[in-house]
């Protein structure tokens, strides 16, 4: 982050993750959205982080390679015969 960020930008940065996680109340959300309306840099940061979070969550929903699933399934079908859970 550059050193010339304004106090408003600093306050914005401190709350941005809570904002993106839906942890802020309506008043705090509106303050951030107002600031972003006036500050293209912060608006770009919010959108960039939102995209990053979305990319991670999309990856989390991607199923495993089928070959791995098959190997795991085969191992599950044959647990140690002498063992009991």
């Amino acid at each position, binding site marked *: 982050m550059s050193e010339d960020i304004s106090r408003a930008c600093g306050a914005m940065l401190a709350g*941005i*993750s*809570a*904002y*993106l*996680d*839906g942890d802020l109340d309506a008043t705090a*959300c509106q303050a951030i*959205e107002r600031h*972003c309306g006036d500050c293209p840099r912060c*608006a770009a*940061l*919010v959108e*960039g*982080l*939102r*995209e*990053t*979070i*979305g*990319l*991670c*969550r999309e*990856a*989390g929903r*991607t*199923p*495993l*390679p089928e*070959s*791995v*699933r098959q*190997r*795991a*399934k085969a*191992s*599950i*079908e044959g*647990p140690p015969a002498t*063992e009991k*859970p």
Partner: protein
Amino acid sequence: MTKSTNLHPSTRDAAGAINATLVREAAGGDRDAMERLLMRAQEVAYRFSLLVCGHPQDAEDVMQDALLQTYRHVSRIKEPEAFRTWLYTTVQNACRMKRRRHVGEPSHLTSIEEGATDGDGKARPVEVEGHARPADQLLMDAWLNDRLRRALKALPPSYRMIVVLREMEGLSTREVANVAGISEANVKTRLHRARVMLRQALEGA
């Protein structure tokens, strides 16, 4: 501007409730429930070991270890509702054990906690040694977005774990804190820093 993209809590709750039911039924001897539980666990274990521990060639072994632990200990899991937390902790331990046993292990063993500096310190990425076999690397390339994989790898391991658990696996802040062994406030701090670092890495990719 739209609001949060957070996972809906009911999605996590529903998954947790299914896991808890399967744990109880499996502990009671229901073989079908055990198989379903293990199938759910295997994907979790593989992703975590691959992304957090960073040894592609070990991911399947770690997954098998975690499944075996689940099979052996399912009847002794005290809180079925906390199964996911138990599983991630088990996988994390399996990753550590695997790395200690690894032939050709780096002379300096990097713990998952190493590289994290909270407070005012700067977090420095710790590169995980890569000994990937070509087949595993191809599998990974096909599975995970290449830009994201590189960006994740650039994070300090302790930060990477927070991102994977919170963003990719959908754990709550409290669950992540339990697995990582840190406070919820610390989870939030690391998550915020990790998101910013990830963004910067993605922009520079």
